[in-house]
């Protein structure tokens, strides 16, 4: 097992290194010039100022040398400074990463905590009313795009029921309760679509497992249908569900772009968007890299979870 974890960690690190190269290259391939953006109207009238500023920021050097400088900084934990306000990128990222993780974690929690029971119910009571109701909820969940479900959630929970704030962010240290209540709606918005996917997958996989011989053996041992399901069918049914969660969890990161805008949540995505508009290279690189890192972290955790659930993963087999 430790060898399995080691090899997964190594491949995660390698992915991160490759990601940093891609991040750097793609950002510099984008059209647009940060200096022009920074100088605004002055840039059109004063080419001298543009040249001077380009030199000051080191943007006139060859890309390779710029990359090496950046990568060298990376190793020392220095991600450079924002071109706009001169603040260290790392400080900004460290402020934002936990918020984004919170959002993704909340979304995952919604997806798994609601999706799994829904799927189990849909499989157990297939053809009966509760099962069909669960299936309908699941389909409705993954049919609604984030911006639709998000707006509906705001309408219902904050405008009509007046239970939760419609948007905004308060630091946990300032007011923990308000912080969490601000988190509820964005998490639901981001997770509800995924919940539908998890429910459908769980249902299909569980129905499949229930027909397996080992579930029949469990019944022949004297377990009730319900216990045979929870003890024998469900753990095996979860293996493919977990890998789907792993593959799709990355999509939650994409969803955060809309959700952060919709709920005014100051996370990584909104930082990336504003940095991109300003062509603030260091900030863009930093936030993209952070997003990559989160993505890789999620897959790593899912791999490890799979190793825990399925003994055939991570051993040499027969």
């Amino acid at each position, binding site marked *: 097992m430790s060898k399995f974890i080691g090899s997964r960690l190594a491949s995660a690190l390698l992915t991160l290194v490759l990601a940093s190269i891609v991040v750097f290259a793609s950002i510099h391939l984008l059209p647009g010039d940060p200096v022009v953006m920074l100088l605004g109207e002055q840039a059109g009238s004063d080419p001298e100022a543009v040249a001077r500023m380009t030199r000051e920021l080191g943007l006139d050097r060859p890309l390779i040398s710029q990359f090496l400088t950046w990568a060298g900084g990376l190793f020392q934990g220095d991600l450079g400074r924002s071109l706009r306000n001169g603040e260290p990128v790392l400080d900004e990222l460290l402020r934002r990463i936990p918020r984004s993780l919170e959002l993704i974690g909340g979304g995952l929690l919604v997806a798994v905590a609601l999706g799994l029971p829904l799927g189990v119910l849909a499989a157990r009571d297939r053809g009966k009313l509760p099962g069909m109701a669960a299936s309908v909820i699941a389909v409705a969940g993954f049919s609604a795009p984030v911006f639709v479900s998000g707006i509906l959630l705001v309408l219902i929970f904050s405008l009509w029921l007046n239970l939760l704030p419609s948007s905004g962010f308060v630091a946990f240290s300032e007011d923990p309760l308000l912080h969490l209540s601000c988190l509820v709606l964005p998490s639901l918005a981001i997770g509800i679509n995924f919940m539908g996917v998890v429910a459908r997958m769980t249902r299909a996989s569980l129905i499949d497992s229930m027909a*397996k011989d080992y579930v029949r*053996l469990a019944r*022949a*041992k*004297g377990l*009730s249908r319900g216990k045979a399901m929870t003890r024998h069918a469900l*753990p095996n049914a979860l293996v493919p569900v977990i890998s789907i969660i792993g593959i799709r969890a990355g999509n939650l990161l994409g969803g955060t772009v809309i959700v952060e805008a919709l709920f005014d949540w100051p996370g990584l995505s909104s930082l990336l968007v504003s940095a991109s508009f300003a062509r603030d290279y260091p900030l863009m690189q930093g936030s993209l890299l952070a997003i990559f890192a989160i993505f890789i972290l999620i897959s790593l955790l899912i791999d490890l979870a799979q190793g825990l659930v399925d003994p055939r993963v991570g051993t040499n087999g027969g």
Partner: protein
Amino acid sequence: MSGAVKDEAALLSVRGLVTEFATPAGPVRAVDDVSFDIRRGEVVCLVGESGSGKSVTGLSLMRLIEPPGKVQGQVSFQGRDLFALSEAEMNRVRGAQIAMIFQEPMTALNPARRVGDQIAEVLRIHTGLPRKAAAERAVALLERVGIRNPAARARAYPHQLSGGMRQRVMIAIACALKPALIIADEPTTALDVTVQAQVLDLLFEMQAELGSALLFVTHDLGVVAEIADRVVVLYHGKVVEQGDVAQIFSAPEHSYTKALLAAAPDVDAPRVAGRRFATLAAPAQDDKAQTGARVAAAVAAPAPQAASAATIPGAPLLEISDLRRDFVTRRSWTGRPLETVHAVGGVSLTVPAGKTLAIIGESGSGKSTLGRCIARLDQPTSGRITYAGRDIGDLAGDDLLRFRREVQTIFQDPYASLNPRRRIGDAIGDGPAIHGLMPAEARHALAGELLERVGLKAEHAVRYPHQFSGGQRQRIAIARALALSPHFIIADEAVSALDVSVRAQVLNLLADLQDERGLTYLFISHDMGTVRQFADRVAIMQGGRLVEEGETERIFEEPREDYTKNLLRAVPRMTPYSPRRRRPLAPAA
């Protein structure tokens, strides 16, 4: 119905059992008015071919038929009406008083749980034994069923055990609570013959030790003769005959039982050249000349090549010299091989034209890999294979195309080798189409002819593979191989999955074709009884090596190697109460 008189001493008494499944085409009766009794400590074999309802009967008794299946009738067990019990009461019967063993030990054990826990579970469900005590009992049970190093094995997952060991674990689970009745559903069918003998011995030993009755569901009459006290013969869901094992074998009354016994391959019967296998529908023999002429016409349609070496009888058609095939199972990160398995480790063989060479071996003996190398579906690591005088490794272009036409393979699993989305008529016509042998219309006609030849109907050509049974699909696969009028057929366990009656039909067909067209067969099998009747020469393989090779009768009458002797001894014999019975077999090397 004979033997259906109410027996007060019966442990289990089944009366008028009916199991129906709702299908779109209306209800299908899988079990139709079945009645029988089992006395304490008795071994009753439920015998039948696929679709006879024998497995469904076992599940019905346990009330494990899921809706939309419906079970009716009366089952009394130790004086209690099982069908009147509540679900909770039934759960206390299952596992504790009636235990079950399933056919496929790979799929019947939960892949995600340690085998020790799976044994301990049944103890904990019924006795409330604390976790630690149950775990200790599980280890003791593993030791009892003959698993070495049981404490370590208890911590293993099912995929880390061999098929035989997994079935031993299943027996441990079944015997854990000393049930009064064990229902075993084809428990040894998936196992190699020597492992089968060991598992049967163990099952028998446990049954005798616990005094349990055993309801043994099987299609293998050899196994029946070895273990049964009484036999219940099922056909299309109905009991056609039941009685004492000696009576069933010596004086069967029903014509189906007689036909079944006649069709079962007997490893002790000497080979009679040209003898046809008995089938359930004996008339097939009468119009042999007629069907033979028809298929000869159909198969001859694409005009075989004149005087290829393949048609000179007796000359070596295929020569294999020092063939090796290694598989690298583990590599270092630079790609350097760390572990290598020698699937075939230096085999030399000759197959004469117009004859049948059988390759016998247990799983992992390399027989299928050898077959794949000969068909050039796999690349040998070293060694030479010549077909009709030419090294098949050198074939290219038209020569290779011709080789592909002349050499056909029939695989073991017809479901996996037929494309589920293609009509079988098209599948059969694919070969001639690929080789550009005939126009579409002629292909349709050929498909129809071949389907009739393998015992199906010409109008079946428009159906899809899932609409056929396993045996029918295997016959389709054979029709597809014949469509190219091959000279050499590699049959890789091609009849192993077939019921005896269908197997006989297919073997007769292959024999006819050999007579008519001088076909050469490489017959890969683990079924010794069939091989003795069908093959001219036999090669025994073990662990990738050739143990011995020779004339069929010589191998069966005077085997030289210990491995061959042990293998032959392990085959269940067709004689009830044979001296072998209940005598444990020496463990295989």
